[in-house]
């Protein structure tokens, strides 16, 4: 399945995180952070599981439904940020209230890097273990390779699809929470910058191997961050980064042809 709705899960995850932080102003920072992470993951999981469920029960193509859900998620986000959850103090750029400095994720001691990176690495390792070292992951790979074969051997394909989508959405939602809790401190339009789409590129570049995602994600984060530098030093527009990402994506997909033709490029058994 190709789901391209990560952006929607990320946006809603960020919103859920800041909303839950609003409701508990006096709790201890650790409790608030855990609540934010859980809320973001539930919101993201529900959103993508919706696309998975539609696929399973109604046969709706998940690529298209998840993309439509992105636009709906952004509309819901704007509606709530403009209305119910708006911080009255944010005049020009509607935002939710600040989550409070104490509740922010700090930086890893000795570096400028925030703890979100640790969240990401743990998620990658967990995903790797889940996919390659558990019965559930094996079932998931069978269902992904051939649905008919999976049904034939009695795998609960529907449940596998739903859980896989839920987990995918949960990690996208967690990304939203990290963005809110470590970078912005509140949910506003700066959350909607296309990380969800870059994430698809990362997954394809990493050849769908969770461990490979770590270096690839750092690499692409670097390309993203270099956008500002390109703008200042070379006078290139910020869209340069988008063009570069598109080119990388096309090149990677096209290189699929070379499998089996070059001696060192062998397809790994799934």
């Amino acid at each position, binding site marked *: 399945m*190709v789901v*391209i709705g990560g952006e929607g899960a990320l946006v809603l995850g960020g919103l859920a995180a800041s909303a839950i932080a609003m409701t508990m102003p006096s709790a201890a920072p650790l409790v608030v952070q855990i609540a934010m992470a859980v809320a973001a993951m539930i919101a993201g999981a529900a959103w993508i599981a919706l696309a998975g469920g*539609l696929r*399973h*029960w*109604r*046969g*709706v*193509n998940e*690529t*298209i*439904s998840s*993309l*439509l*859900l*992105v*636009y*709906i998620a*952004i*509309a*819901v986000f*704007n*509606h709530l940020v*403009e209305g119910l959850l708006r911080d009255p103090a944010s005049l020009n750029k509607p935002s939710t209230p600040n989550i409070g400095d104490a509740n922010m994720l700090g930086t890893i001691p000795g570096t400028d890097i925030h703890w979100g990176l640790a969240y990401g690495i743990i998620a990658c390792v967990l995903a790797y273990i889940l996919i390659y070292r558990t019965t559930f992951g094996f079932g998931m790979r069978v269902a992904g390779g051939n649905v008919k074969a999976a049904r034939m051997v009695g795998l609960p394909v529907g449940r596998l699809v739903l859980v896989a989508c839920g987990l995918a959405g949960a990690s996208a939602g967690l990304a939203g929470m990290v963005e809110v809790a470590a970078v912005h401190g509140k949910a506003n339009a700066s959350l909607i910058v296309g990380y969800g*789409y870059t994430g*698809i*590129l990362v997954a*394809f570049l990493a050849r769908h191997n969770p461990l490979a995602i770590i270096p690839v994600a750092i690499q692409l984060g670097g390309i993203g961050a270099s956008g500002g530098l390109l703008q200042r030093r070379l006078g290139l*527009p*910020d*869209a*340069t*980064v*988008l*063009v*570069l*990402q*598109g*080119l990388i*994506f*096309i090149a990677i*997909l*096209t290189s*699929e*042809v070379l*499998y089996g033709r070059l001696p060192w490029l062998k397809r790994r058994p799934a």
Partner: protein
Amino acid sequence: MSGDLLGWWGVPLAVLAGAIRVSTPFLFVSLGECITEKSGRINLGLEGTLVMGAMSGYAVSYLSGSPWLGVLAAGCAGAVFGILHALICSLPRVNDIAVGIALMLFGIGLAFFLGKPFIQPQAPNLPSIPFGWWSENAQVRDALRVNALFIIGVILAPFLLWAFRNTRWGLILRTVGDSADAALALGYAINRVRMFATASGGFLAGVGGSFLSLSYPGSWSEGLSSGQGITAVALVIFARWNPMLCFWASLLFGGAAALGPALQSVGITQGYYLFNAAPYMLTLLIMILTCSRDRTLAGAPGELGVTR
């Protein structure tokens, strides 16, 4: 001020006007995607093609002073993207949906990259034909100013339906889309047919994009397209790969998209953003209602990845 006297009747009128105005890009993109999907391939990159078409159409119209030249340029840019998609997909083991997503990112990026100098200047727009000359009412007249491109689209839809059913080209296209093996046995070059179909689909999507920048809203900016390309792809499925149904579906979507601004103009601002999402919700709802897990959709090309 007879326009204000309409009051609540202004809402359906604005929805109608919006349906005609907003639906044109939907119409062109979905007709283009219809041709592409009939050949058995799905091009999700039309969103990128649309934005690229909007940019190149606007740029050429600004530089040459002729909006129709801009439309042509937009179509050609779209065709180039279509050929690119077709070329990459004709390689073995390449997933057309993934290539589409890649081209969507690439097209949007390239359009933003090349389009920076054209954000400020005002290019000549496409002419509109006033069909509301009989009315005294300013709002009615405004609503019935129909753009020439829309009329081309209205003619194109039944023509495509006829061409699919009654011409040699249409038959070849449908054969390739329904069973590549049968087409191969008959001696047709599958990849060449698909390349042609994807290129013409890209051309139409590019023209749809030029409508965005040259007629309504009528200028080039980076927030120009908000998923029209993708919605149009979903719309083709909803329209059962029938060009005429694509036309009616586009009108429905245009109307849904115009609902939010129309309600806002009579003073209902509550839930403005939610009304903005109405076309997407409508698409999703219709897809939920019309799809089924047990059977493939009637009229679906057999080679198409989405329905398998």
